[in-house]
């Protein structure tokens, strides 16, 4: 190879930088097979419905003294200790916002799915009690918003963290959660294997599809469920500084597009990801109400929990070729 360009400010890369060992048909890893959505067998939802609507409410606890290990999660403390401003604004979601949102769901006739940090049910047994009475579907959402499952997390520690989270939620709700959502949708290289070993059936971390698909682990297959980040409330309103009204419009536009596509191509899923500390604010709630009213007014909509949607999908994957596609 010739000499480095004399004026380049960059450290050189070796010739290995021009090797492409994972350049092969399909993906560059073995977690799932390459498959385009339009090539799959059309899915039919119960009663011939077209669009499954999964309203997902995350209930989170952000500790005042986060370790930030192995990485900091979005939404956590960002001011010098003690960051009362962010701590209390997040906690607002669990004291006020969640009740406002549950009322909005009830009014709209929506059954939500709740992704819960396990620490929260220990801290707030009254909230846990209400959730237990409502018997909404619960997704395990790790321990807190300071337990990132990310590269650098020790495997044994991660297995313990997963077990502790699932055990705590199981005890609180009398039922083992079948779904998992990693905080910040981050994963370590072992997360899918460890949650599968712990009894989880589906998880919601990978945003690469609008429909479920089969995800391989060392201990058998998980179902990857499509929980959007791109029009998640926190992403749109907090990270991207867009208005509440725009968020509602985005949900409505997504609903229209997915319904139209479902009419041509088979069942689709509209996930509506919400966070109690974001959309539970008084100036935002009416936009949640408007979006939900719009979605629920559409013919062909099936509001269901993530677990129900996952089960309905799995029930149709009888063909091995398709389930592995």
């Amino acid at each position, binding site marked *: 190879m*010739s*000499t480095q*360009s004399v*004026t*380049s400010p*960059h*450290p*050189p*890369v070796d*010739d*290995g*930088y*021009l090797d*492409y060992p*994972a*350049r*092969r*048909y*399909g*993906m*560059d*890893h073995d977690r799932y097979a*390459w498959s*385009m*959505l*339009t*090539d799959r067998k059309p899915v039919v939802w119960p009663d011939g419905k077209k669009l499954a609507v999964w309203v997902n409410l995350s209930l989170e606890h952000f500790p005042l003294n986060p370790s930030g290990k*192995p*990485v900091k999660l979005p939404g956590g403390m960002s001011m010098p200790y003690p960051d009362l401003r962010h701590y209390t604004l997040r906690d607002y979601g669990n004291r006020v916002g969640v009740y406002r949102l549950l009322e909005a769901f009830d009014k709209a006739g929506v059954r939500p799915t709740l992704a819960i940090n396990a620490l929260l049910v220990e801290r707030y047994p009254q909230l846990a009690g209400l959730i237990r009475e409502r018997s909404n579907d619960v997704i395990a959402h790790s321990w807190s918003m300071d337990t990132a499952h*990310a*590269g650098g997390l020790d495997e044994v520690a991660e297995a313990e963290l997963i077990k502790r989270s699932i055990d705590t939620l199981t005890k609180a709700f009398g039922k083992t959660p079948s779904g998992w959502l*990693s905080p*910040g*949708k*981050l*994963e*370590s290289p072992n997360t899918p294997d460890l949650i599968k070993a712990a009894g989880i059936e589906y998880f919601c*971390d*990978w*945003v*690469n*599809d*609008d429909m479920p698909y089969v995800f391989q682990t060392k201990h058998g297959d998980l179902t990857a469920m499509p929980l*959007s*980040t*791109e*029009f998640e409330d926190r992403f749109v309103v907090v*990270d*991207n*500084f867009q*208005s509440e009204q*725009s968020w509602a*419009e*985005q*949900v409505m*536009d*997504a609903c229209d*597009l*997915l319904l139209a*596509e479902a009419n041509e191509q088979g069942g689709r899923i509209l996930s509506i990801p919400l966070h109690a500390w974001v959309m539970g604010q008084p100036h935002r709630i009416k936009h949640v109400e408007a979006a939900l009213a719009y979605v629920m007014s559409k013919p062909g909509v099936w509001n269901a929990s993530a677990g129900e949607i996952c089960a309905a999908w799995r029930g149709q994957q009888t063909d091995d070729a398709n389930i592995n596609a």
Partner: protein
Amino acid sequence: MKDDPGYYDYWPYSNRPKITWPNGAKLAFWVAPNIEFYELNPPKNPSRAAWPHPYPAVPGYSIRDYGNRVGHMRQMKLLDKYAIRGSISLSTALCTHHPEIIEMCRERDWEFFTHGIYNTRYTYGMTEAQERAMILESMETIERAVGKLPAGYLAPALSHSEVTIDLFAELGGTYTCDLFHDDQPTPVHVRSGRRFVSVPYSLELNDTIVYVVNKIEPRRYGRMIKDSFDRLYAEGSTSGTVMCIPTHNYQVSCPHRLSAFEEALEYITGHPDVWVTTGREIADYYLAHHYDAALADIKSGRKA
């Protein structure tokens, strides 16, 4: 390091030799879908990290994979509807990973230009020979896949060296998408002295810049496209303009975003004096009809 890239001379927008497009069109319109492959575990480049998270960077990787699994078909259907042939900015490893996508685009006679091999392999730190080898391999991969060498280049992840455009011109390319200095094609100086041009691609209307960097609402993006079109179409009466919408299937094809884009496409293609074309056709037409006059006008150093 230089204080100016040296690829072009200053050239006032006013009073340029008039560009006319085929059939008297005022505006050449092209859509450039970036069809990219990002690696889950790319080798480290000391100058730029591929992902913000330690391996595996699930959020970044998985949304980009969405573009290929879900988004591509949505955008292709839309471009079919408005009779637009995409000009693909291609991570050429995709020819191996996802040949089905390549085949569908080839059937439609879309243009393929090179965008490097992977969008997680940066030009930074490459020697000239390494960079030449990378660009050449990407060009040859396209030739094998679709039977024709690419004419255009957009450096992978917009990562450049000082000689990126020179190298591409020497390998037989005719246009670059890497310069954002103009709303019309312009001649580009390359060290070989070859006839080589810049075809306006756009950062301002690039969906990833719009959505990821500038955090703009989908419906506002639709309005921005229409406003941009109105102005360039009007100015095209004086001298033909170019409008490009660079897209990414993992951004524009998300269900909450596609309808705003569709409205904008319907609006643009509903105008009579629009040449709906590809990057290569713009470059070829300009080189054949307007390049020499432009060069002479630039050299004259005339008054603005």
